[in-house]
């Protein structure tokens, strides 16, 4: 897999805005960002209300995903270009989610909304009308999703990568620093996890670093690229970004995203936890 198979840049998007069979999809942490202005023709997916089951603590199921994409006017053979704010946190999460349900024609806009804005490119408020489709999803591809028991079993055996900020890893903070401190019952990290903040994989403008820089980043932090890997953060969005770097850019085959992440692990009874700066 090459970088161009999974990433497009802002120039490419601007040149292909009117391509048939291409759908731009914005997914932001700040779910009001799209309404204030978005790339022309883009549709919005609200990660909180549309990607999460409103009752059960989990994703929408296969039927729910089919209904969502049908309602957005996305067909099975459409090329979906995802982008979003906060350096593509939730766009990367949505990318992983699309892959989970078997949509392979999907790419990320490198740098996401921030790169587009820093380039001073056009944003519009017109919302496109797309006729509904009859989208068919596949069963979840569990080769890219880790669950809590796998994480506990992976301690000391597989690569565990904690991609949160250093203060979250050490236990000083329970949440990213732009959020009030809430959520899990305990602070800290999974024993034997390497601390490699997601941000190290990105440049200031939100674009991904080069393959060479990424490979050096992970190997110098002690990650054995020949071993199975699980990445986690707090709720699975920042670790989607790292999962993308490892699997989609570096081409590692067995990389899973633990979407339960610290919100789940830090509230489990009886699992081992480490505090401190670690490695």
């Amino acid at each position, binding site marked *: 897999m090459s970088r161009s198979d999974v990433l497009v840049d802002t120039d490419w998007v601007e040149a292909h805005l009117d391509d048939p069979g291409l759908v731009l999809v914005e997914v932001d942490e700040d779910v009001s960002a799209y309404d204030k202005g978005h790339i022309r023709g883009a549709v919005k997916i609200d990660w909180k209300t549309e990607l999460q089951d409103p009752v059960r603590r989990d994703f929408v199921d296969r039927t729910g995903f089919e209904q969502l994409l049908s309602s957005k006017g996305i067909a099975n053979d459409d090329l979906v270009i995802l982008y979003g704010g906060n350096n593509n946190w939730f766009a990367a999460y949505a990318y992983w989610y699309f892959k989970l349900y078997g949509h392979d024609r999907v790419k990320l806009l490198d740098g996401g909304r921030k790169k587009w804005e820093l380039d001073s490119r056009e944003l519009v408020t017109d919302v496109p009308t797309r006729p509904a489709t009859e989208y068919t999803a596949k069963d979840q591809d569990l080769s890219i999703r880790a669950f809590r028991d796998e994480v506990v079993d992976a301690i000391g055996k597989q690569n565990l990568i904690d991609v949160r*900020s250093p203060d979250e890893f050490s236990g000083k903070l329970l949440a990213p620093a732009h959020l009030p401190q809430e959520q899990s019952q305990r602070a800290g990290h999974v024993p034997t996890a390497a601390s490699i903040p997601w941000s190290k994989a990105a440049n200031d403008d939100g674009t991904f670093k080069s393959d060479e820089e990424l490979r050096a980043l992970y190997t110098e932090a002690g990650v054995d690229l020949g071993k199975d890997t699980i990445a986690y953060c707090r709720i699975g969005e920042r670790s989607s970004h790292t999962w993308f770097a490892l699997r989609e850019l570096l081409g590692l085959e067995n990389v899973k995203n633990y979407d339960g992440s610290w919100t789940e692990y830090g509230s489990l009874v009886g699992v081992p936890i480490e505090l401190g700066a670690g490695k």
Partner: protein
Amino acid sequence: MTQGCAAPEQTAHLPATVDLNNEAVIQGTVTRDGAPVSSAYARLLDSSGEFTAEVVTGEEGVFRFFAADGDWTVRVLAAGGVSVDTGVTAKTGEVAGLEVTI
């Protein structure tokens, strides 16, 4: 009050549900020629220069972080290659205020 990881609105007033006694808040305003700048990017760097969080300034040019106690740097990015660093110290129970001019 935000839940999960939804981005909190960047406004001048702390949300009523935030208990300041348990938070070390870094809050500031970005201005250009005396006017607030919305849609600038404020990122929080720890004492080693590591990225910790980033927000987009709201309509009043406001950004806010809930940090750990200690020394931090706020880096403001904006279109046109603007990048301005400002040092700040956070302490639980206090709001450290910043005025950033770009």
